[in-house]
């Protein structure tokens, strides 16, 4: 099977960051406490910034513009992984999704930094400089919840649910590294399950896109903001 084209790769990365950025922003104003309100809003801003840069690269290749790619496609055309599409406004699931995504994303970025394509290697290097703070934040929370008798069972339940989705973020060749890292942190063997892979979509994606593009769709073509 041939690998994805350069534009497909860029869109997969951009879609993941845009959709997760939107999901993270759903905590703005309602996180359990102010520090997390600030953290998730900042992380959302970073992810959407990464998405913009990646869409711009993809747009140059596809002869369109970043906004058209971000907002004017139908849900089936998105290449996001189902993990980022899930709407889980519950703290254990939010933290587990955050940690699993950031762990998988770090593995993917490390591979992209070695790319022969200088533009892709460059943008991956720049993105990774910011992602390191997302990982610090995610791991701080995982460590904190793992150490709590009250949180631990809820965390385990969320890991159980989201693990097949986490595997779906990465291509086959990078998955073993994710398994290794997650097993190392949790100190247990992860079940060998079928990944929920890119290409299929959660029902929540259509709802998200409906909400995200509402203003754009209501404005006349060519409106400037």
């Amino acid at each position, binding site marked *: 099977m041939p690998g994805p084209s350069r534009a497909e790769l860029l869109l997969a990365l951009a879609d993941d960051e845009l959709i997760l950025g939107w999901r993270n922003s759903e905590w703005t104003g309602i996180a359990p406490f102010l520090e997390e309100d600030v953290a998730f809003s900042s992380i959302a801003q970073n*992810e959407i910034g990464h998405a913009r840069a990646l869409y711009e690269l993809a747009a140059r290749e596809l002869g369109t513009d970043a906004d058209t790619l971000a907002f004017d496609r139908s849900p089936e055309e998105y290449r996001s992984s189902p993990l980022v599409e899930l709407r889980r406004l519950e703290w254990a699931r939010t933290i587990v999704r955050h940690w699993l995504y950031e762990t998988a994303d770090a593995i993917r970025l490390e591979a992209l930094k070695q790319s022969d394509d200088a533009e892709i290697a*460059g*943008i991956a290097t720049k993105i990774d400089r910011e992602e390191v*703070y997302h990982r*610090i934040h995610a791991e*701080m929370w995982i460590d904190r919840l793992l150490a709590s008798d009250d949180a631990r069972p809820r965390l385990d339940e969320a890991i159980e649910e989201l693990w097949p989705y986490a595997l779906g973020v990465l291509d086959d060749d990078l998955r073993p590294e994710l398994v290794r890292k997650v097993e190392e942190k949790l100190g247990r063997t992860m079940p060998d399950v079928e990944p929920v892979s890119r290409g299929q979509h959660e029902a929540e994606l259509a709802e998200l896109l409906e909400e995200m593009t509402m203003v754009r769709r209501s404005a006349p073509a060519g409106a400037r903001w």
Partner: protein
Amino acid sequence: MSGASYRLQLAPEDVWRALAEIPDPEIPVISIVDLGVVKDVRVEDGRVHVDFTPTFMGCPALEAMTAQMEDAIRGLGAEPDVEVVLDGSWSTDRISPEGREKLRTAGLAPPAPRSAGQPTLIQLERGPFSCPWCGSTDTRLDNVFGPTPCRSLRYCNACRQPFEQFKTI
């Protein structure tokens, strides 16, 4: 020197000087040149080409910086051509010594130098990070994230003041 001959003789140094007048839109105590985001300036036939490496990719000040650079170059009588370069070439190590001092006096602790490895939570928790107000290194991490993506929140146990810490990236 007349305006016309000045334009003919426009040198990269003139452009650097003009760009050094542009404040960072979010941290106006420091100029965009102090911030190190201007990577290169080239003058060719009345066109000024600027390589611009933004700080954080989602920084809303990106467009404002580009527009201000373009205005400044037009003010010198030249056509601007600002190219956004997205690679690893900007890091907080590019902030000039003057820029770091300006950040500190504005109450924003300058970023720690980049080390060989990536930043870690232990590093952020154990320091040493100096309070920009009293200089004490007896400070603690309050939040990895702050009011803008480029800052963390810390608290000084010595003078009991919260302060913002520029992240090392």
